[in-house]
């Protein structure tokens, strides 16, 4: 008989090894999947995980790593606080959209005025927009005990409809010949989130992501708030006895994740995307959930996981154009990664015993 015995404390070694093992398992099973789809498995895996970094054209793809990784890291950092404390914000995608809309609204309202304060103002509006959208499930949870998972998720669909209505209506470019979509913010100097160093992919969103990682690290390891978050996650009753207000914790955790998701949306709409359009959101808010778990809800881990996930996005696009791999295959690969991580994680918390003595 195989039996699982709970460890007194999570295994240090497996905490680090589990994500790596999960990535390898995903590669192996992914390769089998690609083979079943009629692709050369080795070539496909190399195209996805290796080519964006080290191939002949890597100079073109490496900046993309920052562009795609920044929103993922920014959102995942925010989510990690809540996930640690048992507050499940699943609606980051919606907060990302609303952040972009709020920020873009400020920029578009001030067009064509040129002023150095416009971009900072947009950043503020983006963060506030995301924060406000996250406050809806948070307040409902605290005030009425409503399930925040379901409410935050429902609000994603509401936000998507709002985005469509804005792109087609209020924010449509008046000089756009009737095409849907707003003015291009990237061509409006005061509002543009341009590359800080040309050709590096480094824009303000990337800077914000790195700052968020550092802040989160300090908060989590040195600040009393980080302690409260960890305590509430590990022992909710002990946290309540020691004076941590559960309601306050929900509001703060949801607020942080909403504001960061909103920021990610703003940086995207003012930079890489450039405009408010119907298909502006591409699922970063959901992929960030995978990033947060793969990074073990730890800031440094999230940074690495965000990079890896950005890699699969870019590699996936290359595989799509060069090998004709369907886009859905990458989505499947990302989902598989989270599955394997959750499965392997049993080794972090439990010891495996074989034989009859396993009953002990």
């Amino acid at each position, binding site marked *: 008989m195989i039996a699982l015995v709970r460890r007194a404390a999570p295994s240090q070694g497996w905490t680090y090894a589990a994500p790596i093992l999960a990535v390898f398992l995903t590669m192996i099973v992914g390769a089998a999947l690609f083979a079943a789809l009629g692709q050369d498995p080795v070539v496909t895996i190399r195209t996805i995980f290796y080519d964006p970094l080290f191939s002949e054209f890597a100079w073109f793809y490496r900046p993309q790593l920052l562009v795609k990784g920044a929103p993922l890291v920014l959102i995942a950092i925010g989510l990690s606080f809540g996930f640690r404390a048992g507050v499940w914000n699943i609606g980051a995608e919606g907060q990302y959209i609303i952040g972009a809309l709020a920020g873009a609204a400020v920029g578009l309202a001030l067009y064509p005025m040129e002023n150095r304060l416009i971009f900072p103002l947009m950043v503020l509006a983006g963060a506030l927009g995301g924060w406000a959208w996250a406050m809806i499930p948070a307040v409902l949870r605290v005030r009425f005990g409503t399930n925040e998972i379901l409410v935050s998720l*429902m609000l994603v669909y509401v936000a998507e409809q709002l985005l469509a209505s804005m792109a087609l209506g209020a924010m449509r470019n008046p000089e756009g010949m009737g095409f849907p979509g707003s003015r291009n913010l990237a061509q409006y100097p005061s509002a543009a989130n341009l590359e800080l160093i040309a050709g590096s992919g480094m824009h303000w969103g990337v800077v914000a992501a790195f700052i968020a990682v550092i802040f989160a690290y300090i908060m989590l390891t040195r600040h009393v708030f980080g302690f409260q978050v960890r305590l509430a996650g590990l022992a909710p009753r002990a946290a309540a006895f020691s004076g941590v207000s559960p309601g306050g914790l929900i509001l703060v955790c949801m607020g942080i994740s909403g504001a960061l998701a909103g920021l990610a949306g703003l940086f995207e709409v003012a930079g890489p995307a450039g405009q408010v359009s119907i298909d502006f959101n591409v699922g970063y808010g959901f992929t960030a959930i995978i990033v947060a778990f793969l990074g073990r809800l730890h800031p440094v881990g999230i940074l690495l996981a965000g990079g890896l996930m950005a890699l699969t996005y870019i590699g996936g696009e290359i595989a799509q154009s060069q090998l004709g791999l369907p886009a859905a295959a990458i989505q499947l690969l990302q989902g598989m990664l989270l599955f394997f991580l959750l499965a392997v994680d049993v080794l972090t918390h439990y010891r495996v015993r074989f034989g009859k003595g396993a009953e002990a």
Partner: protein
Amino acid sequence: MDFSAINPVLLLASLMVAATPILLAAIGELVVERAGVLNLGVEGMMITGAVCGFIVAVNSGSPWLGFAGAAVGGALLSVLFGLLTQYLLSNQVATGLALTLFGLGLSALMGQGYIGIKAPSFPDWHIPLLGDIPVIGEIVFQHDPMVYVGLLIVTAVWAFLTYSRAGLILRAVGENHDAAHALGYKVRAIRMMAIMFGGACAGLGGAYLSLVRVPQWTEGMTAGAGWIALAIVVFANWKPGRLLLGAYLFGGVTVLQLNLQAAGFAIPVEYLSMSPYLATIVVLVIMSSGRAPGSLGRIFHASR
């Protein structure tokens, strides 16, 4: 705007059709949650069911086989969830989310060659006598067979949970898994069966979308229906009767907003499309005082 374009009889009749996919998925999840397991992967199982059902139905030409295929597909995916949460003791919230993300990717991949094809439909059937009753017959008795299969499943689940010994055991496992284990019930096995039933029902609900309601395959076509089903379970306070009410309430909102769109109501389409999701939130706020099964979402690990 022309309200006379909205026919109340047709409205009520299409309400039952609109409610059916949610009802099917929700009744499955209700059983899963009564067994103490929170499976947030309903959306993923639903969309996988939608694509499996569509593929089987197109290739076999039979919608019945399609629905059977959808149930099998949904159940297979749910086994993955069951293995992870029951045997590898993973967090149920995270695993459910993973199941949804995985299911969305898997379905998009499987359905690639099936975009733009029309699914075979149920042959027209006419329920004798009942279908001929004026007004009521038109509203209640002139639907495709799956509407009644859904109602049958709800009734069966209600009877199972209320009157059968097995139903009592399932509820015991959901209320207190340690006590149930101490009494000698196989907590994991019972939960696995419940999870598979939930997967099969979610699959049926998804297939109802792709085979009857739309009836086509498009990526991401469930559009949150699985999450709404989860919300309706909470609304129903984990009781099958109330579940029916919740699903029809939701079906009513959906159908009404579609009718208002068609009638050229003065509100933009996007805002009308939001209404089912907003209605779900309102319902959750009003009904969040219910009592969930005692062991819901908790990991069961028998130390001996």
